[in-house]
């Protein structure tokens, strides 16, 4: 392996560069938030109202004028942040692909590779979602999370690991891990939105009755709640699929589809908590704040599964020590 480190080195270099770009994006997003003076960053959907399906009417596109005229500075910074984020995403994608080419397999053989791929997943989820919704305000959160993940990857988890252990050689690995990485991205974005929701909700509850709620740079609590739900309705079936494909793979590798290995257990816990969130959302008295907390606990379970189990618990899934 040592004779051919070139590609791996280059991949690592690009990861470092993308970290620099993400840092710049983070600063831009911070400036954008600081520069938003108005209370009406209404954050309307940029998608036209999806009409025309019935009847031949013109789509009733919502005018964005209040944003454009009132907050040019913050907007520009946010746009710069988005462009930088796209750039960082592209670079990280190249880095991950190069790593895979160098290793001659999918780049998911160890914690370092998982981490850079997950960072890619989070950025990808954010960017794709940003095509449909105005969520640039979430940029500061996304860039922070990605920077932390990448920092951990290059500083703590970096390895020059070579091949996969035989149990990981399966096309189910490809399917299972891609699904899990996409879910990871979606869960991370959803958690950011939930935190924003809880902030907005608190602000509302502190507002005396009848008074106007104080100015805010975030979308309304109602919007955030719906956004969180939308993302989780996408992520929950995919997570279900990720768990099932993991079970199918486990069956072929270890001779049983479910064995309550710690990783399997936490995947199950994560699934059950998000199911509880979906129920809470349709249960009187639980919708809103309580449901939001449940979804955050779901994310916590996901993180425990991702970091805690790999690094601290003994089990078939521990990749530690490579």
């Amino acid at each position, binding site marked *: 392996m040592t004779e051919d480190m070139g590609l791996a080195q280059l991949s690592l270099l690009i990861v470092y560069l993308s970290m620099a770009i993400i840092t710049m994006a983070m600063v831009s997003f911070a400036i954008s938030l600081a520069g938003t003076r108005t209370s009406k960053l209404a954050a309307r959907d940029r998608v036209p109202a999806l009409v025309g399906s019935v009847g031949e009417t013109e789509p009733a596109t919502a005018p964005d004028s209040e944003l454009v005229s009132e907050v040019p500075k913050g907007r520009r910074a946010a746009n710069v942040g988005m462009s930088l984020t796209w750039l960082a995403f592209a670079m990280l994608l190249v880095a991950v692909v190069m790593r895979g080419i160098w290793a001659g397999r999918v780049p998911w053989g160890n914690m370092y590779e998982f981490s850079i791929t997950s960072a890619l997943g989070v950025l990808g989820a954010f960017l794709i979602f940003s095509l449909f919704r105005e969520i640039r305000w979430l940029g500061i959160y996304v860039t922070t999370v990605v920077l932390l993940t990448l920092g951990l990857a290059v500083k703590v988890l970096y390895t020059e690991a070579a091949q996969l252990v035989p149990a990981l050689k399966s096309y189910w690995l490809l399917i299972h891990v891609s699904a899990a990485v996409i879910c990871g991205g979606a869960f991370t974005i959803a958690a950011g939105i939930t935190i924003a929701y809880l902030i907005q909700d608190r602000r509302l509850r502190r507002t005396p009755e009848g008074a106007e709620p104080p100015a805010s740079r975030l979308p309304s609590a109602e919007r955030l709640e719906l956004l969180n739900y939308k993302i989780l309705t996408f992520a929950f079936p995919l997570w279900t699929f990720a768990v099932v494909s993991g*079970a199918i793979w486990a069956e072929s590798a270890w001779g049983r589809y479910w064995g309550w290995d710690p990783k399997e257990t936490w995947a199950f816990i994560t699934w059950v908590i998000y199911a509880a969130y979906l129920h809470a959302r349709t249960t*009187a008295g639980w919708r809103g704040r309580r449901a939001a907390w449940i979804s955050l606990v779901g994310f916590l379970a996901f993180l425990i599964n991702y970091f805690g189990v790999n690094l601290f618990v003994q089990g078939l899934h521990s990749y530690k020590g490579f």
Partner: protein
Amino acid sequence: MSDLASDLSTQPVAPPPLGTKGFFRWAWRQLTSMRTALILLVILAIASIPGSVLPQQGLDPVRVNEWIVNNPTSGPILKRFGFFDVYASPWFAAIYLLLFISLIGCILPRSFAHARVLRAKPPVAPRNLTRLPRSTEVSSEQSADMVIDSAERVFRAKRWRVRRGEDEGGQWIAAEKGYWRETGNLVFHIALIILLIGVGYGSLWGWKGNVIVVSGKGFSDTLTQYDVWGGGRLVSATDLPPFSFTLTDFTADFERGEAQRGAARFFEGKLTVRDTPGAVPYDTTIGVNEPLSVDGAKVFLVGHGYAPHVIVRDTTGSVVFDDTVPFLPQDGSFTSTGVVKVPDATPQIGIQGLFLPTAALDAVLGPHSTFPAPDDPALFMSAWVGDLGLNSGKTQSVYRLDTTQMNLIGRKALRPGETWDLPEGLGSVEFVGFTRWASLQIAHDPGQGIALVAVTFAIFGLLLSLFVKRRRMWVRARPTETGSTVVAAGLARGDDERLESLVNDVATAAASGWRKG
């Protein structure tokens, strides 16, 4: 208002009524309420945690014992309450059984209700449509009749179920769509029940055994051949399918690069299989992720190791032992230990051995292996003579030597092909060479197919449940001097961002005499 808008769970929690019958009805309603399902789900998640933190009997019994020894106060208490076997403990079962009872209690009435809805027509238009959360009013130059006709064309083009009528408020049309949402939701929840049935069925009628097979040797599927075997409550030994196979060859490859040096890279076993005792044998291979399916059972490769080939001769020089003996790996470099027992020698001979695929001697570690592949193999031995204790009636492990009635007569390290003449003319030990063994797990899980079908349905049901929109719409048209006034209104289950624009679209389309194409 309609049942679409009223949430299933919005009824306030009433106190239990007096009287037994009333009480049971109240209790049942509580158990099958959405809030209970929610709480049970949260409890299920919490209850799963200890099993991932504490060592579990099924996964690692050795660590369970260690844990109990190290924690003499809490250990036995936790053991008593099943914390070392959480997922088989009664309290864990109680939680998921309650959840599933709640689920059944919830699904049954919903299924009946949904079956009725599927056959029913859309509900009559409410008198005052503008009171619905989403409604709009436009005026049209067309007659009320034409407006409703247009509305019907719009709905039919989009495959809504429609119903027309007329009352004092004028003509109306009701339309409904998205029945798959509830269907999908029911399919999802029913699939969960079937999944549980599949899992339970598999654990009652399934079985699983482990066996070590040395390369060149055979195995036939009977209970006595297994090293370990466990079956569900309803399985008996006669249920085992009568296949057999020979492990003709086994290869393993290891990482030689610096990173992850010694990590396993590739395993493969070659097998000659007979489905039934008289059947024609066929060749096949088995690998990690590539189990062999034979007669309802599956053979998985779960481990491998080395089996030194040893020949022992007695005082007269005649062969008393000639076989390959599986040695168990003790570390990642396959430093392996094993025992050769020679009951046919007089006195009996026992050898404790250390097989090293790549031998190294170290002042601290002693003899050990530095790499898992057989680059420089050696067999380190301690020879004992005396009574092996095989007739004591106690069952002995083939991997342990009972030296209580034996004397150590010497130690020696051999390379393949070398022979050691035992001291005092007690015979000789020849290290001929070595072969490999494969550790196989053979399992039969009849519930697996059920579980797989169930989860497939669950996922598709879930997608329908989450992405299909259930909507109702009404259009009323009242004649005016210039044409008619059109009121359209809609109602959706759950959040529906598009409903408002849909209502507007339908109103406009109906008012302007929409037709296809």
